[in-house]
């Protein structure tokens, strides 16, 4: 499938700020399921800084802008050809050992309920292999946390979302990371885009899911929000231990101004 992305993030400050520093993970991953046709990241102000491919295989580019600034806009435009690999991250070059993704972070710290959720999901799994176990965990998380925008916020932890029983893709991905790690399965948070479906299924165009390490297969994506594995409707940008670490844009403004954010994302299929 050929997907066209238009993604714009506008930061507006109520008082001008002295400067802005950002770190971008806004370029699609290189693996067998994605081929870049055209891709551009434009920032309305400032200068590009150093850029590099990190140990997890993500392209990281930094950007800084001098103040006084009242707003700054990051625009992503591009086209990617995607292939359905049923979630398998085949041909992705990276160097971080899977075992490093067993570590907990604050938003993915498992409480008793998360540990119990994983345990129950696998109670009848018997000798099921790692891939089957991962599927069971993903289903359990999707069932335990109903999709409902507005119930949670950016700093909600996996444990809190499970307590509420509601959340969005970030909460599903955090919770799946937490239950998988509690079962000694390396897991990580992935950020990316999802092409709009026409059957009315709720979704977010700027999307997030989890990847679980399956020996023999490598990293496999699981989208607990949509009860599936990422296919050719998905574009993968980058990964990390949690949403903060995998964020497409991390930024800090110097100054007193309060920030408000305006995001638009459109992912369209150029041909079907």
């Amino acid at each position, binding site marked *: 499938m050929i997907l066209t992305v238009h993604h714009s993030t506008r930061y507006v400050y109520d008082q001008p700020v002295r*400067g802005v*520093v*950002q*770190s971008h993970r806004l370029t699609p991953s290189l693996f067998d399921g994605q081929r870049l046709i055209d891709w551009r990241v434009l920032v309305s102000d400032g*200068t*590009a*800084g*150093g*850029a*590099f491919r*990190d*140990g*997890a295989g993500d392209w*990281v580019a*930094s950007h*800084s802008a*001098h103040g006084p600034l009242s707003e700054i806009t990051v625009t992503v435009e591009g086209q990617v050809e995607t292939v359905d690999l049923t979630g398998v991250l085949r041909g992705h070059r990276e*160097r*971080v*050992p899977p*075992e*490093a993704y*067993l*570590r907990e972070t604050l938003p993915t710290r498992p409480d008793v309920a998360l540990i119990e959720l994983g345990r129950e999901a696998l109670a009848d799994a018997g000798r099921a292999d790692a891939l089957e176990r991962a599927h069971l965990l993903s289903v359990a998380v999707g069932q335990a946390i109903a999709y409902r925008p507005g119930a949670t916020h950016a700093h909600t932890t996996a444990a809190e979302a499970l307590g509420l029983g509601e959340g969005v893709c970030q909460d599903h991905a955090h919770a799946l990371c937490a239950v998988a790690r509690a079962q000694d399965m390396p897991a990580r948070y992935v950020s990316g885009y999802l092409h709009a479906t026409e059957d009315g299924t709720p979704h977010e165009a700027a999307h997030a899911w989890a990847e679980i390490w399956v020996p023999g297969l490598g990293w496999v994506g699981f989208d607990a929000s949509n009860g599936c594995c990422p296919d050719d409707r998905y574009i993968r940008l980058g990964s990390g*231990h949690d949403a*903060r670490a995998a964020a497409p844009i*991390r*930024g*800090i403004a*110097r100054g007193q101004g309060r920030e408000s954010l305006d995001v638009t994302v459109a992912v369209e299929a150029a041909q079907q």
Partner: protein
Amino acid sequence: MAEFFNEMYEAGQIRAPYARLGDWTEAMPAELRSLKQAEAEALFRRIGITFAVYGEGGDPDRLIPFDMFPRVFTHAEWRRLERGIVQRAKALNAFLVDVYNRGEIVRAGRIPAHLVYRNEAFETAVVGFTPPRGVFSHIVGVDLVRTGPDDFFVLEDNCRTPSGVSYMLENREIMMRLFPALFRENRIEPVDGYSEALRRTLASVAPAKCDGEPTIVILTPGPLNSAYYEHSFLADLMGVELVEGQDLFVEGEHVWMRTTRGPQRVDVIYRRIDDAFIDPLCSRPDSMLGVPGLMDVYRSGGVTIASAPGAGVADDKAVYTFVPEMIRFYLGEEPILQNVPTWQCAKRDDLKYVLEHLAELVVKEVHGSGGYGMLVGPKSTAEQVEAFRERIIANPANYIAQPTLALSACPTFVDEGIAPRHVDLRPYCLVGDRVELVPGGLTRVALTEGSLVVNSSQGGGVKDTWVLAE
């Protein structure tokens, strides 16, 4: 614990390196001694060298007690220590380069993967990145104890930001002012080359993007930090700027320092703040100590950070057990300095042994430092031992145990005259284009009779440390 090695005596005779100090003390009447002691204290006050103690409250500007009786090593003793420490510093850095790249030592099964990759200090953001000259830990502080004329043990390695070197320099300075004659009678190797060696070391690891003379800064958390004095002292000696996070900013591919003449590019940052605070974009967004965007500049080769982010995975107390293995694996050599035998409470058999022998052992927290949260079995009451037992059982993986070593003692001025007190030693190894250390280090002394805890936060003092010239 009655038997211990007194560094001044052997078989009732004064050992050679202390020969002249015997005469020195005999020729010093009590009045002169208290006069000199008062003078030393006044000098320390005037210099402003104080040590705030974490978590103890009280006077943050307390002086660390200075004992005027020097500790002395022969040239031969020192050369062996030096070779052993250099060997260790090389192996620790080789380990860091390895675990952030192919992880050969893990693949070879010489160290368990979980100790490395699940370690809090393992920094995934620097995987695949090798800092200039392959150095992660530019200043390695190795804590040593002695149990006999030729028996030294490494207690722990400090690969991040070991403190205390300012005491090594100041103790010498004060001793030379108080007793100039001593330095004429004894041929003592100088330590004052340290600051220049440190500056050269830092300059030698400037990033590829730096052309010309590198600009070096020391990044401090600020005046509230217990080692702030040391940060400003070293900046002064090296002739570099002492900065806080707010003095630096990222623009384009570089880090810049605000100065009265406009921004100046910074090439090497000797940071005295922890990894978690370096860059609020990466870890703690609420932290004001670091510099937003610093990690991206670092990863793209625009600046060197010393010690490198992620260096801490080499000096954790559980990883420590494997340093002799690192020396064999990377250098193909046998360790010159021994580790203290260590039981890992995370292991079932080790835990069983530790719980059965608690009253004889020293137990430490895996991530602890500064002498907090430790049990010295033979020096503790039965209640203290039992209370500690419960803490270990509640979280075994958090503890390691070691035999209680009969630490050597050095003559020390006490109220009653001169008496042996237990000591340790921390030399500072510099790693850049070369691996070197100045002949000396920081000797800490447990001033309470019989005490084995030398930490300044637990009532320890310091001594000047001499290495005699050949």
